[in-house]
């Protein structure tokens, strides 16, 4: 009996023109989103590669100079010396022998590598910069830049697969299920069917199975297509674990909308009313609640203004400068190129500039920490409020799964800051000891290698969102079975 009803349901679904239209739209949207997401990630990757190539090029030129100088020294039998800071080309050791110059005037770009699923959910990766210049100077210099992007497009938000899943997939599901029972009742066929040896529950179960199969096929099938078209690192287990999580989250989310439609049907109103109610719930959960939560979070815990941070940073800079000896020292520390050749004090200016940067850093880090703390408060509030809407839980979950979440970026920042101080120490110590950089030293420069977060950490953060989704789903799924007992079969 089940099989008969299921096959009948599948066939009748397949003959609904509107469903095919929506499915076509969904397919088109997924294709477009995959294409757009792939392009966005490729653009970021090119930006990172270009920045790295430029800085490496600068250092390669410096290295070439030192090689030529080393050859010259070897030929003439002189000693390999340290260059004072001077940008005017001339005779003597090249600037590349001076660790202070190399460390301060070139930057090592550190990059947050995208996960294999990055193109599926752009998340916050378009407003932050995923590659940061590590150089001598201060930590704040490192994070002042932003990814360049048209603010109009940022405000609109990306058309990525996460958007299709969160906004459009529910519409498809609701269109398929909003008149699950009500249409049969309105046509009068429900009473006829139930006159046969089949219970209402069996009928419901068959109808649900038929539709669930369609949704499962859509979610898994198109998810896989999207991954294969724009996913990367397909040879790594982690990518597939993340993809499995993606599918689980999407299925839970689909199940929620599906069960909601069934629940509304069980209360036995007309198809038009069911449609209106479900559309209203969609609007509230997907549009109204997320924007309200965001409003509340930013009102209760407004991020301290970056403008204030800028003013404070300048305050610290001015104070540092005033403690820095003579105005001449200050001038030369900014304009090493103006120091006359042979002026031994030129070295001191760089030392002083270093000391100044260190002072600014010391004054600013506590401020920056405050800043981050407030952001974490806000994030915490959103984490608690996410249970108000499956759409929020889903967005947070998909960002987490795709590696475009705020938390992963913060972890990257910590690693980047550590690398910057490593870079700083490497060059500062050699510079302060007046140790000349030799060509082979260029191979010893610190290199950044991103340490991926353990998957368990990711799972831990993901757990809250997924557990919330699961809970909401369970609630909405179980209720219909209770309500079904009182279902009025015949139209009144």
């Amino acid at each position, binding site marked *: 009996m089940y099989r008969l009803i299921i096959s009948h349901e599948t066939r009748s679904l397949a003959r609904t023109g509107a469903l095919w239209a929506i499915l076509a739209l969904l397919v088109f*949207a997924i294709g477009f989103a995959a294409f757009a997401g792939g392009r966005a990630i490729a*653009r970021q990757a*090119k930006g*990172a590669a*270009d*920045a790295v190539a*430029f800085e490496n090029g600068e250092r390669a030129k410096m290295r070439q100079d030192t090689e030529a100088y080393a050859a010259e020294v070897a030929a003439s039998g002189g000693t390999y010396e340290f260059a004072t800071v001077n940008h005017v080309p001339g005779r003597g050791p090249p600037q590349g022998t001076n660790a202070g110059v190399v460390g301060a005037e070139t930057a090592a770009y550190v990059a947050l590598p995208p996960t294999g699923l990055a193109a599926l959910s752009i*998340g916050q990766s378009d407003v932050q910069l995923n590659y940061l210049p590590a150089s001598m100077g201060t930590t704040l210099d490192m994070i002042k*830049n*932003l*990814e*360049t992007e*048209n*603010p*109009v*497009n940022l*405000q*609109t*938000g*990306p*058309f990525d697969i996460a*958007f299709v899943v969160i906004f459009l997939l529910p519409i498809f599901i609701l*269109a398929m299920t909003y008149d699950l029972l009500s249409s049969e009742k309105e046509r009068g066929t429900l009473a006829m069917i139930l006159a046969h040896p089949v219970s209402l529950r069996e009928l419901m179960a068959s109808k649900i199975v038929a539709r669930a199969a369609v949704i499962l096929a859509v979610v898994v099938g198109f998810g896989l297509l999207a991954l294969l078209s724009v996913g990367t690192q397909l040879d790594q287990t982690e990518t597939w674990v993340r993809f499995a999580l993606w599918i689980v989250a999407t299925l839970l989310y689909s199940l929620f909308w599906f069960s909601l439609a069934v629940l509304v049907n069980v209360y036995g109103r007309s*198809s038009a009313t069911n*449609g209106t109610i479900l*559309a209203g719930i969609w*609007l509230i959960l997907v*549009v109204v609640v997320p*924007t*309200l939560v965001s*409003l509340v*979070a*930013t009102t209760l815990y*407004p*991020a301290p*203004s*970056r*403008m204030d941070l*800028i*003013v404070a940073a300048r305050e610290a*800079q*001015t104070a540092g*400068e005033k403690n820095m000896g003579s*105005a*001449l020292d200050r*001038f030369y520390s*900014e*304009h090493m190129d103006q120091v*006359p050749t042979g*002026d031994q004090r030129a070295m001191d200016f760089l030392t002083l500039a270093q000391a100044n940067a260190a002072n600014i850093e010391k004054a600013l880090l506590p401020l920056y920490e405050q*800043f981050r703390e407030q*952001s974490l408060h*806000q*994030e915490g509030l959103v984490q608690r409020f996410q249970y108000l809407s499956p*759409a*929020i839980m889903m*967005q*947070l979950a998909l960002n987490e799964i795709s590696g475009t*979440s*705020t938390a992963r970026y913060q972890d990257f920042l910590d690693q980047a800051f550590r690398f910057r101080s490593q870079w700083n120490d490497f060059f500062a110590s050699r510079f302060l000891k007046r140790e000349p950089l030799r060509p082979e030293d260029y191979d010893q420069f610190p290199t950044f290698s991103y340490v991926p977060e353990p998957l368990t950490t990711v799972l831990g953060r993901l757990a809250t969102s997924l557990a919330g989704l699961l809970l909401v789903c369970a609630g909405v799924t179980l209720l219909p079975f209770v309500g079904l007992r009182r279902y009025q079969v015949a139209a009144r």
Partner: protein
Amino acid sequence: MIATIARKEFLEIVRDGRFKWTAALMVLLLVTSLLAGWQRFNSYSQIQATAQGSTNTQWLKQGDKNPHSAAHYGNYAFKPLGPLAFFDSGIVNYAGTAVFMEAHKQNFPIARPATDTSAVARFGELNGAMILQVLLPLLIIFLGFTAFSGERETGTLRQLMSMGVSRGSLLWGKAAGIAAAVLLVVLPCLAVGALALAATGLQTVGGGIGTRVALIGGAYLGYAAVFLFLTLAVSAWAKTARAALMALVGFWAFTAFIMPKTAAEVSRLVEPSPAFGTFMAEMKEHQKRGIDGISPRIRLAEYRGELFRKYGVSRVQDLPVYWTAVSMQKLEELDHPVFEQHYNAVRDEYARQLRLQDRLGVLAPLLPLRSISMTLAGTDLIQHNKFMAETEVFRRNMVLKMNTYLSQAAADLNGVNSATNYMIANEDVFAIVPPFRYEPPALRDVIASQAGNFTLLAGWLLAAILLALVAVKRMSLERN
């Protein structure tokens, strides 16, 4: 006759229980968002004004130093909000709010509020504009989709016709009735908005508040009317009320959610803009090789030759101007065309992207309305670009003033030994740079920039009315 129909339609809607719920929700959201917008607007404006005041003082009180060092220290420009930002925050959260203006470098705006908010903010900001752009059309659809289809299903449509009511007056009457119900919800909220405006309007930039409000109001009314007549058209044309609702909600979702994002992606495809790393690498390479392929170093040597000829001297120490200062100014000026080419290219790409999105407004009336709203609120891309352009003008003037001062005041230091080879200046010298003041674009230009969008919106309105007239003319009176 029209008045009678309108009255009946209005009463029927208002007495419906669903109306009370949706109206209550709308009022709640609209009032909340306007108040939150007002609070945010005040707090931002306060911080912005304080920060600008502080950095201006810091510039003057930076301590005695070489004028060129002062130009390195530079100053910041903080972007003030447009006059109606509490209603439509536009791109404020996604465009930078501060620009560092320093010697040798043009900089992108930094301090983008969106980087410090949770990912949930990407669902959109709940503000007055968002509610009127996204939720108001839905309210209109819910109130109006049964206007004809419902009467046809209950059989009253044929009855009505038998009484000699013309189809045209039926359409206008129903439109007036629904419009009255919608205004009943929206107008009190807008009164709250007007109060908020009265409380903030005085301290804002941009001026012409009355004109701005009138034009924004007109645009939103037109937008609402588009949805009203489309709803009536579909209601008359659809076979059942259910089909009418499905079609209308589908169009709504298309115009409110799918089209803006699609338009943004399409515009990115047609007019790609470089990522930060690509931009910087290309620009720095260009700086090094010189705008026309002749390196700044060679240009500088040529310039020294020119100066020698001009003053009839053959050594730097004989120049009547301080060579260090004029050479730094020369290098600065050699960079100007490079900056212009690269930064303007990005700026123009953004503007072209937006224009393309506006034009895609032929498919979704939300797009032209969004631009009109942002622009008149003073929170749009055009004004952001003008802000960026003005910071660059300020920067160049600041650097020029400092270098010029140094070139004359230190002329006797040419070639002198290093220990005395510097001059220091004080606050009085720094004060020759007037403080940064942002001059928003003239209201006339702001309005002119939106002429195309107003035309597009008017076109939509005309098309919707025509569609409704045709649909009502051809409407069948019975279910079939």
